[in-house]
């Protein structure tokens, strides 16, 4: 990772000099700049995620149709993706490209906060512009924090957990078409929403405080980017609400309305579909139909 860490370290030092040798401000600005630079990838990821989300009901139908036949399912899936111009990998590739960038940034921050002789020796090898050497060592004290050591009062690890959970909750859509708490996919999504922040929080207990600041700022910047795309719904934070996009129940009249199905030769398909839809309808005085909220 030196091909990224070294230029990032140098850039960090340059910013540090430019921002009045304030290391916290430097970390914040640097993180925001990197997030801005990777915004096109983030946008691509969100767009792809939304497209996948919209295909969920159709995917579910296909699974039910081709239950037990993996090959036909796979073919049908690919056909569906082709019809709608969706690339299932499109959401992952941006993340995979961002990974080394994030690692480089992480490495640059941790190495710049050199606190031992070997770390300082290592830092010397990473500064590509000799004129920046006079900045070393970086001022690593901020309020109660030694930025090169973990936060002794756990304030930052708590912020890491909170902002990671917040980002997860606001930005990771859960599968639609099912608000059933027994749905395994929804359960998995819920578990990840809890487990991931906790795991990161546990790891952050050992991070240098400067790295925790980077993580918190990165999370907040991600949420802000998502909000600027108009994708955020803070109501999902309320108990009982799943991730965006939110499921909203609408009142409809008694007459069951189904989509006009194309005329087909009677192979019982229409009847099967109507029967399935009838099963899904909730009983009660007013019949309702679940729809997605934009």
């Amino acid at each position, binding site marked *: 990772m030196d091909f990224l860490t070294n230029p990032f370290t140098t850039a960090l030092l340059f910013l540090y000099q430019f921002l009045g040798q304030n290391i916290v401000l430097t970390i914040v600005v640097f993180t925001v700049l990197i997030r801005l630079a990777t915004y096109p990838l983030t946008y691509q990821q969100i767009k792809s995620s939304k497209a996948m989300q919209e295909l969920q009901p159709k995917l579910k139908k296909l699974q039910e149709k081709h239950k037990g036949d993996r090959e036909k399912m796979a073919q049908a899936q690919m056909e569906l993706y082709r019809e709608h111009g969706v690339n299932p990998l499109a959401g992952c590739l941006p993340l995979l490209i961002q990974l080394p960038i994030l690692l480089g940034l992480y490495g640059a921050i941790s190495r710049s906060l050199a606190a031992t002789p070997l770390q300082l*020796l290592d830092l010397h090898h990473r500064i590509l512009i000799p004129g920046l050497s006079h900045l070393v060592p970086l001022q690593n004290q901020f309020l109660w924090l030694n930025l090169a050591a973990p936060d002794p009062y756990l304030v930052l690890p708590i912020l890491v957990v909170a902002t990671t959970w917040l980002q997860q909750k606001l930005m990771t859509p859960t599968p639609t078409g099912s608000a059933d708490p027994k749905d395994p996919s929804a359960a998995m999504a819920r578990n990840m929403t809890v487990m991931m922040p906790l795991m990161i929080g546990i790891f952050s207990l050992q991070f240098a405080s400067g790295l925790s600041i980077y993580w918190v700022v990165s999370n907040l910047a991600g949420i802000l980017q998502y909000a600027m795309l108009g994708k955020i719904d803070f109501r999902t934070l309320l108990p009982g609400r799943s991730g965006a996009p939110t499921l909203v129940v609408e009142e409809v009249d008694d007459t069951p309305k189904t989509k006009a199905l194309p005329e087909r030769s009677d192979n019982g398909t229409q009847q099967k579909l109507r029967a399935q839809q009838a099963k899904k309808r909730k009983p009660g005085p007013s019949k309702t139909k679940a729809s997605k909220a934009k």
Partner: protein
Amino acid sequence: MSVLPRPRQWLYGAALLLILLLTSCGAPLPGESWPGISTDGQFVYVAYHNRVMRVNPAPPPGDERSPVRRFDWIGQLADDKIHMYAPPAVSADGIVYVGAYDHKVYAFSLTNGLLTTFNSDAGNDKVIGGALIAGDTLYVGNGDKGVRALDRRTGARRWNFTDTRYGVWSTPILVGDTLYFASLDHFIYALDAVNGTLKWKVDLNGAIAGTPLYEKGILYAGTFGNEMVAVSLERHEIVNRYATQGWVWGTPVMLNDTLYFGDLNGWVYALDASTFKLKWQKNDPERPGAIRGKLALTKLRAKDGGSDKDIVIAGSESKYLHAYDAQTGDLVWTSAISANEQVLSDLIVIGDDVIFTTLSESQLVAAFNTQNGQKSWEVNYTSEMTRVQTATNPPVTLTTITPAPTAAVSTAAPTAAVSPASTATSQQ
């Protein structure tokens, strides 16, 4: 079958991989420091992890060519999470003082085997530099800021100067009644040694991690601003500067009014100490590596009836030693590869051996012959610890300290009077 699409599963997988990578690949450097090394002229003292050890460099009786040396004394802390890398300071009455990464200074008794429970609190951060022994006072720099003066027998704090911006990784120097030290905050400070008040300070424009050299009223200090700087103690100002290729960390050495030192870009320099004119500079482009530590000066014995030659030896991150003619800079020898590890510590010369520490426990201390660059002996830390801990009659004196509240050092009669200055050459 889960309707969670594979891409989302990949997303979670990628996120988990990121966490794993960040905490493993992105973690700070492994290791903290190279072992600290010092000498009292006869023995070599090494601080490493929770132990400080003494090595007798003389070969065992009857085995002059033995390639192995052993520890003949070990002081250790019961808590193996407390690490010590500062060069040990040894007093004439047999007390070894070492600063630790838990910001305390520990004192171990060499002579009477007493468990010495002195561990004066020396600040809020690691103690990285060596301590200076001056009479009954111990001066030690703190990793976060400043210098403290302690009663070296009781650990009581005499005074505490904290008006530096960053830590002090160097060993203080006492000249008369003035204490000088260099800080990472770019300044050299002069304090009243008795009460710790600031007399003056001067900005060298670059962090100073190493201990300056004092010679004839001048302090010579290398900086991370790629310079060697001379400061006049009389005029309280910089009188000379020389721009180097890289950071200068190690303490310079002087011989016949010539200053010798290395930089982290791998260059060895010889400057006229008065004019700072360059006499020569050398590097090894085939084996590039930082020269971190203090160089060693010694004599190369003449062959065929000629006259002895002064040589200067430099240890490198490249794992090699290089010996240069002190006068001309001509390469005299390049060692066999030292080994397994980079040579980052200061170099010490005892007899015909140049001795240093490495980052490898299989060769924690190594010695090479100053006459030909061949390996003389080594100390295998791992096997030595096994030997010491499993022997029924421990072959060494093992003194273990369990950190406790400050207590008095034993006042058993010292075997020799304590000299005003440090009796051990403390080096980092």
